[in-house]
């Protein structure tokens, strides 16, 4: 069942020590209002699963700057130098994962699979500690599912059933993360009446979503 809640209440659902997936790609499609308030409130020891750690100055980056995290699992941290700084200083654990592997690990958890075989990372340091399996003389890494306590998403519009529609490149990791967390909270720009979203237009079915927060994004911080 989907509940519409205010921003403050959404942020209070996230507890110290939780594993949190955050949708978005270098800020695009990230639930910025939730992230900003979360960083301001000063949550602690989160494990973050996200494509990246944002751009210094944007909402996601503040979680790193405010030292809310214990661990980061991401494909890229180059757009937020603070992450690399804390990592090299031994203050933050960072696990770098190929982007295609990361999204597939999340999908695997959401889809009830035990893992998958990917050629990505073979003969690189990514293969360390992983089982290698050969199929038809080609080597693959066995990658395992990745789930979370919370998924924080951003969508363009929603209906009271929790159905989500994303816009353009803001979709990225959001629909996959919606499937792989115990509790799914979506920041949406607008909530339209039931029946206004055509069934074929839905990108995340409402059954995946637990809480909707109506809040406009503040916009994208440009990198570089």
């Amino acid at each position, binding site marked *: 069942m989907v509940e519409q809640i205010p921003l403050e209440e959404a942020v209070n659902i996230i507890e110290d020590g939780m594993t949190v997936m955050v949708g978005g790609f270098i800020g695009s499609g990230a639930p910025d209002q939730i992230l900003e308030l979360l960083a301001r409130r000063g949550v602690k020891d989160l494990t973050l699963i996200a494509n990246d750690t944002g751009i210094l100055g944007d909402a996601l980056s503040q979680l790193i700057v405010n030292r809310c995290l214990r661990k980061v699992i991401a494909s890229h941290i180059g757009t937020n130098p603070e992450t690399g700084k804390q990592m090299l200083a031994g203050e933050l654990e960072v696990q770098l994962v190929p982007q295609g592997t990361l999204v597939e690990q999340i999908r695997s958890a959401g889809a009830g699979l035990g893992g998958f075989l990917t050629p990505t990372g*073979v003969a690189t340091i990514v293969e360390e500690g992983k089982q290698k399996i050969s199929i038809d003389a080609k080597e693959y890494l066995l990658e395992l599912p990745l789930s979370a306590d919370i998924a924080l998403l951003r969508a363009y519009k929603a209906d009271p059933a929790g159905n989500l529609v994303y816009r353009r490149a803001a979709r990225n990791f959001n629909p996959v993360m919606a499937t792989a967390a115990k509790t799914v909270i979506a920041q949406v720009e607008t909530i339209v009446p039931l029946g206004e979203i055509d069934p074929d237009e839905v990108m995340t079915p409402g059954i995946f979503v637990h809480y909707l927060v109506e809040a406009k994004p503040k916009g994208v911080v440009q990198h570089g």
Partner: protein
Amino acid sequence: MDKAERMEWLIHRVAREFKTGDVVNLGIGMPVKVANALPDGITIILQSENGFLGLGPSPQEGQEDPDLVNAGGKYSTILPGGSCFDSALSFTIIRGGHVDATVLGALQVDEEGNLANWMIPGKMVPGMGGAMDLVVGARRVIVAMEHTAKNGTPKVLKKCSLPLTAARQVNLVVTDMGVMEVTPQGLVLREMAPGVTFEAIQAATEAKLLLVD
């Protein structure tokens, strides 16, 4: 040619590798400039790994769409016939062999086609992003880079010393000095930039450059 002219040559040379309809993913930085250097009459489809096909030019000021940035986080546009999708489908496209070519920069590349372009241990660790999937999945992997490092040391090596992005996946190396193809025999020099001699390019290259027809 001066340095800027040689870089221009490089970009135009890479741009000649495509035919109309090719699906191409261009890495951040110099590779992305290839899109503006395509020969007349050639139209390619650019894939952006954050989730769309039909990547267009940068928007005019005031026309930016906050929901439409490219994989480098820059405002972008989408051409008619383009499509948006999630990261799972984006990497189905990339890893599944549906990208005809990817153009990436490199820290090091070697005569076996190994590529290192994502980290320098203890120093620069931005992460691999989508590069490892692209290099494994794209049908052709083209490295586009300056021939040597800023301090003049070779980047085209017998064997990469930095952590690999992928093993034996590079097909073509295009630099400001020439074009080298990775073959089972080693690196075959296919072309030299105007004014570059074989002696000059071999001297700037650790790997042995082969000259065959």
